[in-house]
Structure formats: C-alpha cells, structure tokens
C-alpha cells in the first residue's frame, strides 16, 4: 500500500483524477437517493392520481379492478417496502438501463422518449450556455480592464440590472417582439416539419432558424451574469503584484490582460460554470415550454400533466447524470488551466 502512495506522490494528476472521480460517484449516488426519497415522500400516491385522472376521462371503473392498480404498482416499482423499491430504482437506472413503461406513448419504456429529447436539450442548453459563458468572460475582462470609461460602466450597470431576470421573462419579451411583432423568427417547434430530420443543409438551417429565439433568451441573460462575475473577479486581480510586475516588464496591455489577468480568472469561473449547469436546466425547462421546443423540459411538463411517474423520475435522473458528468469533465480539465489545482483540491 505505501508503494502506491509514493507512486501517487509522483503522479499528482492521477491521484487528483482518482479523488475527483470517487467524489463524482459519491455525489451521484447521493443526488439520486435524494430524488428517490423525494418522490417517495411526496403527499399523494402517483398511481392513485393517475387512475383518478383516467377515471375523470371515464375510461376506468376503478373500484372494480383493484388488481389493475396492483399491476401498475408492480410495473412502476412501487410495491414492497421502501428498500425494495430503492433496489428496483437503482437496478432500473444502472443495470437494466430500462426505466420502465412511460405513459406518454405506452408501452414504450421511458428512456426512449428521454433519449430522443436529450440531444435537443443538450444542443440548445449546452451550446447557448457555453457561448454565453465565453462571451461573458471576454466582455467581463474588457469591462474590468477599461473600468472608468463611460461605456464600460454603462454596460456594467445594464448587466447588473438585467443579469438575474429569469430566462422565460426574456423569452416572453423576445417572442412578443421578434416573433409576434417583427416575425423574423418562428416562435415554436424545433424545425420546420417540411424538412425531415437528416443530414442535409436546409434541415440544419431550419433547426438554427427555429433555435435562435430560445437560445437568445438563454444567452442574453447568461452573458450578463458571467460579465458581472468576471468583472468582480478581474478587478482585484488587476491589483495583484504579478500584474504590476507584468507592466513593469513593459508587456503590451493586450498580453497582460490575456495571459496575466484572464488566465487567473479562468479557474474560479470554469468551476462556477459547472455548478451553474443545474440552475440553467431549471430555466431551460420554462424556455422549452414557452417555445414548445422538444427538449427534456417540455417532455417533463407533458409527463407531469399526465402523472407519468417513470418519465419524470427518468428525466430528473438523466439531468443529474449529465450535470455531474459535465462537472467531472471540467474538474479533470482544471489542472490544465491552473497547475496548482492538483495540490489543494
């Protein structure tokens, strides 16, 4: 065992990677358990609610066939005590990777719908979040560097004012302005049904055309958010000793801003980006619902309205896995941004 420790001491990055991966699994297990408990402790019983909604539609005479309910209960893994359900839940997720029948298009299992919707969400959410992050960092650095000039202060104050306005507020305004009044962009669906999904150019063109508005509502606010936080980080860095030293070396202002100031800001911001993904998904649900964009968000809202227990639980689990994976990837890339990371995390 001590030999391994000494070997690890030599290969710091490997030791760091192992530590972060272990933490990834612990957090993943913890988050999934929290959601499992959450669903089980909710007031009201999903099956009763589902059957009640069917009853309103006049499809079932509930009192007559209790075994129908028992059957549903078994299918949805809600029979047996809590611990058996928990094992069933984990087995479903990791071993069989089959989330059980979804009610949306019964009897296909839930993960089919989820996996079909996932690329849209990753595409819309992922791309616009990363774009907003990059643009926000650059603008934040410039505003921090040029603080005092009127346009820099003006942009900062606008960002302060709007940076926490929720995505769907902006979404509503954009729909009203660009789609309704000026109708430059379509305000719903992911692509024009005329083109069938495939790898041809105009399909992509229509996807981009349809995706602009929802992406814009995420990017607009995201940029302002990252602008404020970057400026807040870069202004004190401008006072650091190594920056004065860079100036004393007579380096060009552009080089000082990029290699001295900005590179020291990447680390905290990239870590914050990882953590913010969870929050961005929340806003995304509403944006997709507003633009009825076929991502996980709108699938979730549909599933809720018909009490589709498996799909909802599947979507939440999928989001957790995606967000945590993204965080793990970011953690593993951190040492490239800042070599000190291997030591103190």
């Amino acid at each position, binding site marked *: 065992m001590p030999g391994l420790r000494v070997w690890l001491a030599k290969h710091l990055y490997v030791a*760091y990677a192992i530590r972060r991966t272990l933490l990834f699994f612990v957090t993943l297990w913890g988050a999934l358990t929290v959601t499992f408990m959450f669903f089980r402790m909710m007031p009201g019983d999903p099956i009763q609610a589902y059957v009640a909604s069917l009853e309103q539609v006049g499809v079932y005479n509930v009192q007559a066939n209790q075994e129908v309910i028992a059957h549903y209960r078994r299918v949805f893994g809600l029979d047996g005590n809590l611990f058996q359900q928990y094992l069933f839940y984990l087995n479903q997720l990791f071993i069989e990777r089959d989330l059980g029948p979804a009610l949306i298009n019964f009897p296909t299992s839930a993960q089919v719908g989820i996996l079909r919707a996932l690329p849209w969400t990753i595409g819309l959410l992922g791309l616009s979040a990363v774009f907003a992050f990059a643009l926000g960092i650059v603008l934040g650095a410039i505003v921090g560097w040029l603080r005092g000039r009127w346009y820099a202060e003006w942009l900062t104050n606008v960002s302060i004012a709007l940076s926490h306005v929720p995505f769907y507020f902006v979404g509503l305004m954009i729909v009203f302005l660009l789609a309704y009044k000026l109708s430059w962009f379509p305000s719903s669906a992911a692509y024009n049904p005329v083109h069938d999904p495939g790898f041809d150019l105009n399909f992509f063109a229509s996807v981009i055309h349809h995706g602009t508005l929802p992406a814009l509502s995420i990017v607009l606010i995201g940029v302002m958010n990252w602008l404020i936080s970057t400026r807040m980080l870069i202004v004190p860095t401008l006072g650091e000793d190594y920056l004065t030293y860079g100036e004393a070396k007579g380096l060009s202002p552009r080089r000082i801003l990029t290699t001295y100031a900005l590179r020291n800001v990447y680390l905290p911001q990239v870590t914050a980006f990882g953590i913010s993904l969870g929050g961005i998904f929340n806003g995304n649900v509403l944006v997709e619902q507003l633009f009825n964009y076929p991502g996980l968000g709108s699938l979730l809202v549909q599933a809720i309205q018909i009490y589709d227990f498996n799909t909802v639980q599947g979507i939440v689990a999928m989001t957790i896995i995606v967000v945590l994976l993204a965080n793990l990837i970011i953690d593993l890339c951190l040492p490239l941004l800042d070599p000190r990371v291997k030591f103190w995390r």
Partner: protein
Amino acid sequence: MNQPKEIALRDVTQTFRGGALSAIGGELVAVDRVSFTLSSDPSRITSLVGESGSGKSTIARIILGLQRPTGGTVTYNGKDIFCLEGRDYDTYRRDVQPVFQDPYGIFNPFYRVDRIFWRPIEKFGLATGKARGLRLIEESFEAVDLRPADVLGRYPHQLSGGQRQRVMLARVHMLRPAFIIADEPVSMLDAAIRVMFLNVQLDFREKYGMTTLFITHDLSTAYYLGGETMVISQGRIVERGRAEDVITRPAHPYTQQLIASVPEPDPDARWTDRIEVSEQTAEVKSASRDRCLFAERCPHVKERCWKTRPAMMDVRTGHVAACYLYGAASHEESRDAAVTH
C-alpha cells in the same frame, strides 16, 4: 505567586495529513517529539529561534491550547492542558496569555478597541465596576507608553501597526499572567518601535516576574532579550542554552551556519567568504526521519548522523546541542534513560 507554576512539554509531535498532503504521499511532520519546560520561578525570557516552517508557531498554538498535538503531552502543573475542567481550566487560561504576530488581525473590526480590555476584565473578574476597570486600563497604557486618549473609543483600522501591538502589550500588562507566549510579535514592526516593544518585554520580566516564550526568526532580537535561547529546525530542538552561549559560541553546525548568515550592521565587517546553498525544491524528501535532519548540509557529517536521531548532548554547563560532535547517545536511548531515573 507563591508555589512555582510550570508548563512542561513531553515528546510533543504534530503531523499534518489529508487533503493536498495525502496527494504528496504521506504526512508533513511539523513538530517532531519536542520536550522542554517553562517555569515561572525564576521568571525568565526564553526565545525560540527558527526559520519559517520550522514548527515554532505550531508549538505556540499547542501551548495556548488552540491546537491538539497528534503525539506527546503538554502539562500545566502536572495536569494535561487538553483535559482541564472547571477551575483548573480557568487558572490555566488566566496564567497563559498570547501576543500574536499580525497587528492587523488581532482586532475584531466590528468592535471598538476598548473591547480588548473589557472582555478579559469581565471574564477573569479583574475589576468590579467601570471606574476601577478604567483605572486598571489607564495604568496598563502608561506601562506601554500609550496615551488612552489616542486609542480608547477608536476602531482598529484607525490605529497604526505600532499602536496596535502596544495595545496587545497593555492587555497582557493588565492581566499579569504567569506566562506570555509571544509568536513573532515584532516581525511586522519598524526598528524604532521594535526596540521599544522589546524593552517593555524586559520590564515585564524584571518588574512583574512574567515568564515569556518569545518566538522569532531574528537572532539579534533573541540576543537582545538575553535569558535562554532554543534553536529549532524542521520541528526539532537542535540547541539550547543561555543566549550569550548559543549565539556567540554556537555548538550545533546548523546554528553556526545561521549565525554566520546574519548581516552585520557594520560596513567594515562584511562577509568575505561565499556560500553555496544547495536548494531543495518542494518535492518529497524521501529519506527516513530517524537521523540528523541537517546531515545533507552539515560540514562535519559522520556515518552515525545518518543512522539515528542524536540526543541532546552537553557542550558546557547549561548548554546542550543535538549533535554527535558532543556525544554518542541517540534520542531513543536518552529518552528511555530519562524515563527510568
């Protein structure tokens, strides 16, 4: 202050593990089986001199009860300070008071400076009633050459570094503890105020019989204070004796090199020889610790130095050094011997 009070450290060890350090494979031994005793009778100034990272500040925090050591014991009049309860704990806190290094960090920015005095007065019941308390405070201000009008009622950020450190001294003067644990109190002060601070420290011993453990990296300060001097390196006490002996007639090779590196404030006494210091980078020092840790850089290194850790050997009366130049006993043998008799 009739019967003498004593703080005794027996084989105190402090190792840091976990977090980043476990990544470096193993632990960092900050304090490595250190033993010494501070006694209030006769009151004396003992200076603990060492480079940064030698563990001297860790020892201060352990004695003050701020940090529990991973090995060994610290006893106050025979009782382990980390198991003190009720009255014993009160007397210990009453008798052992700190003076910290960073004058800017010792005041809670939220309160006025006066709180530094009123908290101990209430907690230790030094004076009943505001008037008697105020008189006590003014008396202490005199002792440290501070005018109460300049300081009382002010906030910490309105005072200079020198004023703040003197306020700490006034607090200690008011409490009159048996022991003062001063952790590098002068390293952030200018020469002029530093001398004044050291003079007050000398007064505390002469007039009020307070014993001080004075921690510093500056040999000239240790020499100026006199009393006893202990030199610490890499968590181990390597030399101990009267200040004159240790600083003017150093025995341990490490102390000799340290003294030789102190710049003389005299242009005619400049160094003539050149020194080549082999620089170890921060990576792991793999060799085992059961040896003299100065072996790599010691001009008189012998075979035995690499084998076992040297015990404290007698150099002259009251002057000991952990070096095989003066004897052959290893640390283990001497410790067993000490336990038997």
